[in-house]
């Protein structure tokens, strides 16, 4: 019988007839170590995924088309929208006409013209509501009133961090201190145009306070503010949502072929501070995984070491019979790998059928939003590789130290 076959035979017998409690304990340690190795990174991935989703859903969609560096607007928007919509994998296209305005609330109650009252400067975005619903999810986050309709002209939708009130996170003096649906607000646009609007809806994207500091009017309204003749077919940017996340790069390359006179980028390039958080979380996840792996390796080492030490006499007898050191080492390596593989399978089952469903039902309620677990393929691969390597190490070292001892010492301990 070849060395490997013999080693596998010895490993098989040892596993089948070895101490059941030791086997149970080793596999339990392996399973929990594996589940732990993928749990922490998947929580962090869940957080970054939530942040990513917020960025995509409320601010940027998947692909952002901005004017060239030397321009302020994109021209022939309607034509561009039609061209983009023809590509497979595109879910929606929405042109934004952006401006900023000082928004006044209860301006008639001011004591003097120099009284700032309840006002502030915010970004105002002109949208086509029927297109926007295919691109962002602001319409799903209306907490009071309604979303805009295509023909609305004197209506505005405000983010919760503009309106203020109990649910806003921003200090009240930086908000309009409690605007309600139906109230009137006055917008003093950057170009000097002043318009009054009725608040049609208030939204709270909740997790994404950046989006909650936006105000929306219809694009027709914004065009009329900026100058209807010029801005009817212009946009400050075009947002494009796609079917499958990860297809951004491919679609960007395809969109570049249709001659859009603008800069086409993935939303990730606009991630800004959130992008930094995501990168930091990746580093933290790697560090935690690394530490988790070392701890798992030490625990496995101790458990397997005790198991191997308990079989010291058996190892001595095997050597006395004439079985080579290599065969004995392979046999214990095979046992360790078996434990590791079973641990990975059971750990995967614990994660997939217990932990993940639990988090799906009861996501973590964090300030950034409801966070479920998200696992990356490379995290699983690294965890499997780490567990197997740690197990092999944990199996190899103690058996090597025993087979290096004299046979007599291994059998009789002196």
């Amino acid at each position: 019988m070849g060395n490997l076959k013999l080693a596998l035979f010895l490993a098989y017998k040892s596993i089948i007839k070895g101490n059941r409690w030791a086997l149970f304990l080793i596999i339990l340690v392996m399973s929990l170590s594996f589940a732990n190795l993928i749990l922490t990174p998947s929580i962090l991935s869940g957080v970054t995924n939530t942040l990513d989703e917020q960025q995509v859903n409320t601010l940027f969609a998947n692909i952002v088309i901005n004017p060239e560096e030397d321009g302020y607007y994109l021209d022939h928007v309607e034509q561009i929208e039609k061209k983009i919509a023809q590509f497979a994998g595109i879910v929606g296209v929405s042109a934004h006409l952006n401006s900023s305005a000082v928004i006044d609330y209860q301006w008639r109650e001011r004591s003097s013209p120099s009284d700032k009252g309840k006002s502030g400067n915010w970004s105002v975005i002109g949208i086509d509501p029927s297109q926007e619903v295919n691109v962002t999810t602001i319409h799903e986050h209306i907490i009071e009133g309604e979303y805009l309709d295509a023909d609305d002209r004197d209506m505005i939708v405000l983010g919760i961090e503009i309106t203020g009130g109990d649910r806003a996170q921003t200090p009240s003096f930086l908000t309009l201190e409690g605007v309600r649906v139906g109230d009137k607000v006055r917008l003093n646009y950057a170009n000097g145009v002043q318009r009054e609007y009725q608040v049609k809806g208030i939204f709270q994207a909740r997790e994404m306070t950046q989006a909650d500091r936006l105000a929306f009017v219809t694009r027709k309204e914004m065009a009329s503010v900026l100058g209807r003749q010029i801005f009817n077919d212009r946009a400050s940017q075009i947002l494009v949502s796609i079917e499958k996340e990860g297809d951004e790069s491919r679609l960007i390359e395809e969109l570049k072929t249709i001659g859009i006179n603008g800069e086409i980028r993935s939303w990730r390039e606009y991630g800004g501070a959130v992008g930094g958080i995501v990168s930091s979380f990746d580093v933290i996840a790697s560090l935690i995984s690394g530490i988790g792996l070392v701890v798992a390796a030490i625990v496995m080492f101790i458990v397997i070491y005790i198991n191997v030490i308990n079989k010291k006499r058996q190892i001595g007898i095997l050597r006395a019979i004439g079985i080579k050191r290599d065969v004995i080492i392979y046999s214990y390596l095979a046992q360790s790998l078996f434990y590791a593989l079973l641990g990975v399978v059971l750990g995967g089952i614990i994660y997939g059928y217990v932990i993940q469903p639990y988090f799906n039902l009861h996501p973590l309620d964090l300030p950034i939003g409801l966070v479920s677990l998200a696992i990356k393929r490379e995290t699983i691969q690294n965890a499997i590789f780490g567990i197997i390597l740690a197990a092999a190490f944990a199996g190899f070292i103690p058996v090597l130290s025993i087979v290096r001892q004299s046979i007599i010492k291994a059998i009789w301990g002196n």
Partner: protein
Amino acid sequence: MIEVKNLQKVYGHGRATTTALKGIDMEVKPGEFIAIMGRSGSGKSTLLHILGLLDMPTGGELKIDGKEVLKLSEGERARFRLEKLGYIFQEYSLLEEMTILENVYLPALCLERENSYRKRAVEMLETVGLGERLKHYPNEVSGGEQQRAAIARALINRPKILFADEPTASLDVTSANIVLELFRKLNKELRQTIVMVTHEPEDEKYVDRVIWLKDGLVEKESGLYEYKAKQAIEI
């Protein structure tokens, strides 16, 4: 079969050393049944461990079956043990995780010489009276039966020499006699060379020659005829 010259064994280093063997010279011829006897601490087990290649001496020469075995590498010594030596320990030395049958055929399994190891293991176990215990695990049989299984295991590869380290020490009188009778039968019928360490003077009657050790040296040698003469005088 075995040639030993000035064999020495020192345990420990520096001042904390113990000299177990001080220079043993001895010879064992093919087909002999030898007993090594002596008081506790005389070095008899140490000598047997070295002869059985389980331990290394600190000095001297050892030839087994014409080969200078001390010059072999660890791997070559393991192979030599497997092919040419059988070893029976003082205490039960079966592998707890294997059945009696698996314990016996394991050394044959390692040799790859033939596929009939299982059949031969069954025959060996029947020879030692354990034909009914093939699928039992060591903890399911008596001490005497375990020792007989250990003998079957030691013989499975048809070794040139069988070493036995106080094989009857942990057995009751009946089991001990069965084991020793088995040794004598192997020696007489198959001309199996056997070297046995024992502290039982009664065991002398089973062997051809006794090598007496004292303080790590060969004190004297005695033969069967001496035992018989002693018995006759007592009568």
